[in-house]
């Protein structure tokens, strides 16, 4: 059973504190959404979990093991990371890009099995017709799906995704989030995804963690996190929350020129 636990986790760059004293415990499989305004340290939090950034204080335990005592390689064997965007200079074909996800398993050689796994993950993300295209010829949305396929190819027990739906159309936003939820259940893995669309996150996540100004404001099931009060407090936006298909759904009153519309000040960056 995969588990992820942080204990008094904090990150500061120079004198700039990003967040401190984060205590989160995820003890079993599921899709966990991370919400919060821009610049509150969601990505930094994610990078502190897989040691891409070394935490300034506190501990991270993955499957019960302290990451400060693990090598990058140890972590890569069961934790996959899907960045928000990719900055390739010389880009390879889509399949070669996805095959990179097999690196922690197969090292410098690529086996037949690796190619089959990559082909399967490409199929799961609906990009089979692009498999031989060059990565930099694709649209932003296609990029994102290829990067998720690359994460899946790693066959992780814990998967960390930084805004996996930010460039996708609504069909693919729903498709990706549903796929992540199903994967979490079927494979028994922890999927941690940073989201900006509260409604898509609420619809598919088993649990939501709401960040604000370097702290966790609320952590729990979607119905407890997506509330008018929380949205007002964290995002500075007035919203009504209604129930749609058994999940909370936020409707924003964002335009002061329409009757009943109002808007608070932007959350501090």
């Amino acid at each position: 059973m995969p588990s992820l636990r942080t204990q008094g986790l904090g990150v500061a760059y120079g004198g700039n504190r990003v967040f401190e004293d984060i205590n989160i415990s995820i003890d079993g499989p599921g899709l966990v959404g991370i919400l919060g305004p821009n610049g509150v340290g969601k990505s930094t939090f994610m990078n502190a979990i897989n040691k891409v950034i070394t935490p300034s204080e506190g501990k991270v335990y993955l499957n019960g093991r302290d990451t400060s005592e693990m090598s990058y390689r140890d972590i890569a064997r069961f934790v996959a990371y899907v960045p928000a965007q990719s900055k390739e200079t010389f880009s390879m074909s889509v399949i070669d890009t996805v095959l990179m996800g097999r690196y922690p398993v197969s090292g410098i050689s690529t086996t037949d099995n690796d190619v089959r796994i990559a082909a399967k993950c490409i199929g799961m993300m609906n990009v089979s017709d692009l498999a031989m295209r060059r990565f930099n010829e694709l649209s932003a949305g296609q990029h994102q799906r290829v990067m998720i396929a690359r994460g899946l190819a790693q066959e992780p027990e814990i998967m960390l995704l930084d805004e996996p739906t930010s460039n996708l159309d609504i069909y693919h936003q729903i498709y990706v989030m549903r796929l992540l939820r199903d994967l979490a259940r079927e494979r028994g893995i922890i999927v941690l995804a940073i989201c900006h669309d509260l409604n898509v996150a609420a619809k598919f996540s088993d649990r939501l963690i709401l960040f604000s100004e370097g702290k966790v404001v609320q952590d729990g099931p979607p119905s407890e996190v997506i509330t008018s009060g929380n949205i007002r407090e964290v995002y500075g936006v007035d919203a009504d929350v209604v129930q749609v298909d058994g999940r909370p759904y936020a409707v924003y009153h964002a335009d002061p020129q329409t009757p009943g519309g109002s808007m608070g000040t932007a959350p501090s960056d």
Partner: protein
Amino acid sequence: MKTDGILKTISEKVRLDRTVERAEGESDEEYVYREYRASWHSKMVFLALFLALFFVLIGYKVTLGEYDIGFGDVYSTIWHHLTGDIVDAGDDNVVWDQRMPRVLTAIIVGIGLGAAGAAMQSMMKNPLADPYTTGISSGALFGATLAMTLGVFIIDGYYGRVLNAFVFAMVPALLIILLSKWKRPTPAMMILVGISIMFIFNAFQSYMMLRADPNSVSAVYTWSVGSIGMTTWDQIPVILVFSFAGLIILCMMSRTINALNSGDEYAKSLGINVDRVRMLCMLVISMVAAGIVSFTGIIGFIGLVSPHIARIFVGSDNRILFPASALMGACLMLICDIVAFLLLGKNMQIGIVTAMIGGPLFLAILMAQKKEVW
């Protein structure tokens, strides 16, 4: 115009997105798998074609010279020499003692610079990276000038000059390693360090040239334009070791360098110690380039152009790009040497020729190339 056409047909034949016939009722997965195998196969075909071209060029180059020797005879003479059963002592002397050292040097230099250039560009994520922009060439020139004008040697004799050039060519790499104690060595920083060092070395080098007597100035100048005609059989093993050891190490690191290309954060999440890999890579590349340049003088354009040409045919996967670029480098060296001989009727300083031919060739390829490769 004709080369444009040929290039176009070639690149259309082996495009990365070439179509594989889809079988009835075949799943997406199976189809993608077969497509991948087919594309890998076509890259291998290209590598084989490069290799064939390479052997033809060797044979042709050896036929050129005062003493007449047939194309086929070149190969049989080499074969007879290697098997220790020399048939014609005259042919053997011309082929083996007079012409092969130059040809072999051209090949070894091409392989080393081609592989080092490809690795530099991929590792620094910069299509402009080559021994010039990383300060290696100017370091070597500075070291050699120091020896030839002021007589400052680390050790005496012919190897003194080589060692001088080598030591100073390693300065950019060593400086980056020192700087990394305070700052993370990003790719951009590596290039900027290289360029600043280039300016510093060039300034001192110019100053030494102004103060030196005309004879040594002329010697420095001859060295600086790069020559492969002076190497003897004794020196070949030395540059061979630099070149091949470098190629092998880089090929072993190729998949890791692929991952660096997707950004440091992602590479770390794959378990790669990014800073350490980049430093090791920089050290290996510098040793290869410095090892070669210090023997032959500055040979421009091969390190820059070979990877770009190879990329058009085999794509940017470093596992295949490194060997392809190395072979391309060797072919380009031979082509330049052959063209110069045909035009002038004698052997030329190779550094001049590579730039004179490489520059326009590269421009033509850039123009003919429709697809963005980099």
